[in-house]
């Protein structure tokens, strides 16, 4: 590989402590998990496949919040199979928030780019090389996966879910004019220092947290690129979008509207 030849020709002193040559990028995937025993091996397999096929330097950081279903044991097996330089286990005792999971994960990340995504197979790693391509193309600080533009779409949503999703997105676009088509999406690539800065500034939880990240990013004049993605919802029959969630989403949206 070209990158290996580069690292051999540069004197050791010029390589940074994390083993990266000056021109080589490394991508750290943060995977917060809770009860993902079934999906974790599959998502890791897909990630490894995507990265290896594209010759990308990567690491996967699994942040398990004390899952009772044995997620941690599966993660340990994966670490043995793929190596502890590629699979990093950084678990926590109990279920804490997503924001703190990112902070915790980033402390151990040696990449200069961070990828956040869901571990339940709704986000497909095959889009990651496209995120990277897009980032290079426009030198973006953030690349966000969008379900609402281009080829983007979803699978497994009924009419009611689609209406709520499009309706909420419409209101969000009108009120916040965010410059990104999918604000509640959580499949994104960030420059490490950008993610660190944004997490410091964000105060919301849940869907609104992801929205706030983009809104704050625009405030700080960071650039956001978009890549259409397909979102495969496999959680059948379970109502993930109850009245409570909608109410807290609206509250969060109005707070952002009034404060940014």
């Amino acid at each position, binding site marked *: 590989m070209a990158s290996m030849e580069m690292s051999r020709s540069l004197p050791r002193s010029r390589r940074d402590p994390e083993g990266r040559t000056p021109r080589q990028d490394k991508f750290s995937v943060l995977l917060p998990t809770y009860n993902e025993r079934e999906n974790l*091996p599959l998502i890791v397999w897909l990630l490894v496949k995507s990265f290896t096929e594209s010759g990308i330097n990567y690491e996967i950081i699994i942040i398990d919040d004390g899952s009772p279903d044995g997620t941690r044991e599966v993660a340990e*097996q994966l670490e*043995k*199979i793929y190596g502890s330089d590629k699979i990093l286990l950084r678990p926590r005792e109990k279920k804490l928030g997503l924001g703190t999971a990112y902070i915790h994960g980033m402390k151990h990340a040696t990449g200069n780019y961070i990828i956040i995504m869901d571990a339940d197979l709704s986000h497909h790693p095959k889009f990651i090389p496209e995120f990277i391509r897009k980032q290079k193309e426009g030198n973006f600080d953030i690349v966000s996966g969008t379900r609402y533009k281009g080829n983007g779409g979803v699978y497994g949503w009924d009419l009611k879910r689609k209406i709520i999703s499009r309706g909420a997105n*419409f209101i969000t676009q009108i009120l916040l004019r965010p410059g990104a088509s999918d604000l509640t999406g959580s499949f994104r690539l960030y420059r490490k220092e950008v993610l660190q800065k944004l997490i410091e500034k964000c105060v919301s939880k849940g869907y609104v947290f992801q929205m706030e990240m983009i809104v704050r990013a625009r405030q700080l004049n960071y650039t956001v690129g978009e890549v259409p993605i397909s979102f495969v919802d496999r959680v059948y029959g379970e109502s993930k979008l109850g009245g409570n969630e909608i109410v807290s989403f609206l509250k969060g949206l109005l707070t952002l509207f009034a404060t940014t």
Partner: protein
Amino acid sequence: MTKLAQWLWGLALLGSTWAALTMGPTLGLELPLTCREVLWPLPAYLLVTVGCFALGTVGYRVATFHDCEDAALELQTQIQEARADLARKGLRF
């Protein structure tokens, strides 16, 4: 300026313009009757138009919301492949 502030400013600007024009006679501005007849219900008309536009846009977007059948199928195949490969590598599910 927050988005809320921008909206309030915009509404205040439009609102005061409309109020000034519709209260023409009292402020000494004489507009032809036809103008005033249109101007007076304008906010209500605009609200209805905007409402229809919003419903139409959301309706259109829901109707054209892309259903990723292929992605779901591809994922199913890859899951089978992954399970087989991982079992070979020694993973105990």
